[in-house]
């Protein structure tokens, strides 16, 4: 989508935040949100302007069960040191979590993109890798699967297969990162835009995966980020789950 006019950006941001932009137009705009800071800023401004309308609605008390569900989901009953980060019930559960948390990015996460490089703008935290094999499914904002990754802990290999409609980026490469619990990204390699690849992980990547529960995909110059951190926008994240 060509979107050079500031007025048009403003108008589309308006529609996006108010909610009257739906369907494909909304999804196309979300792609722009991932790529352009001016679009993100316009959306943030409208979110801030209109939040009082939502905040001022008469409160509705949730049922007592809601807190119990949240506490159970986050394992809040245990001391922090013993708390699991997620139950890790399977790869599709991870996909759902990634999809849900995309909202973080789409909603108020812009500051993360603009505050610091690398642009880690989404975050999904799942369990460490206790098993021999861990998998992660990278999904689009619409919930469609894009890449399926499989990491063999013992083999030290990362196998990636395109499983959906990955947008062709002839002038760029998609790069896969492990996000450590400390929030530090470590490159795992470049992702294929079609077909599949197997990547031998280096020692830094293996070490990062021991401390990571989330993968991220950024869009980088050909050959990958020139720096040890993402230099392009982080487009997707995916939970790393025991298989």
């Amino acid at each position, binding site marked *: 989508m060509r979107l050079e006019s500031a007025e048009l950006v403003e*108008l589309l941001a*308006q529609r996006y*935040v*108010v*909610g*009257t932009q*739906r*369907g494909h137009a909304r999804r196309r705009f979300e792609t722009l949100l991932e790529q352009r800071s001016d679009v993100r800023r316009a959306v*943030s*401004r*409208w*979110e*801030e*302007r*209109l*939040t*009082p*309308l*939502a*905040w*001022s*609605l*008469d*409160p*509705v*008390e*949730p*049922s007592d*069960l*809601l*807190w119990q*569900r*949240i506490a159970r*989901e*986050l394992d*809040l009953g245990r001391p*922090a040191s013993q*708390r699991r980060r997620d139950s890790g019930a399977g790869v599709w559960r991870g996909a759902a979590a990634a999809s*849900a*948390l995309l*909202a*973080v990015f*789409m*909603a*108020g*996460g*812009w*500051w*993360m993109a*603009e*505050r610091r490089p690398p642009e*880690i703008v989404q*975050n*999904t*935290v799942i369990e460490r890798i206790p098993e021999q094999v861990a998998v992660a499914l990278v999904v689009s904002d619409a919930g469609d699967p894009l890449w399926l990754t499989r990491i063999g802990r013992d083999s030290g290999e990362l196998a990636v297969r395109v499983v959906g409609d990955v947008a062709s980026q002839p002038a760029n490469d998609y790069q896969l990162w492990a996000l450590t619990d400390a*929030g530090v990204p470590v490159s795992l390699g470049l992702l294929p835009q079609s077909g599949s690849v197997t990547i031998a992980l280096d020692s830094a990547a293996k070490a990062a995966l021991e401390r990571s529960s989330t993968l991220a995909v950024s869009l980088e110059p050909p050959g990958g980020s020139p720096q040890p951190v993402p230099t392009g926008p982080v487009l997707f994240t995916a939970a790393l789950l025991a298989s």
Partner: protein
Amino acid sequence: MDAVAREHVATNEADLDELLRKSGRGDARAFRQLYDAVAPRLMAVAFRMLNDRQQAEDVVQETLIAAWRSGAEYDSRRSQAATWLISITRYRALDLIRKHGRQRDILHDGQQDIRRVLGHDDPEQEGEPLAPEVSDRLQTCFGEISRDQAGCIQLAYTEGLTLQEIALRLERPIGTIKSWIRRGLQKLRECVEL
């Protein structure tokens, strides 16, 4: 950030910011306090849009889990905690409406309320005022746009109705609704930025 946006939760803005950050760092006590402070507000937003308590609770659950998992990265210089949480809730609710449809009769549900907002039931009526928690500035600005514009913006923003649904409910052409919302928001923007 607009001054008006900062005002609306000024009474507890700093508290919310801090609770969100602490929650993100794994402070379960702060997280419970955050839950108590915002869950009813988020429920109001989700329930208004979805008209289904279970779905609304699912959305609020996802929002608060996101707060726990991502709150450590929160930066109040970029966004208010309330804006951050409300936005997640609204977008997730819109997503659910898109995927599963709406559990409400959009033609009639709340019609009396909105007709009152628009002043159609009583020509002398000035329109339903915004709740007192809404910042004075935003309330003033809403007073400066037409009832039609204000009503349509609220139907879209707080109830999640599409242009077509608003047109059906108000029995007006979709082009008119689109125009009301666009002009209303433009005036609102100019007003709050004064």
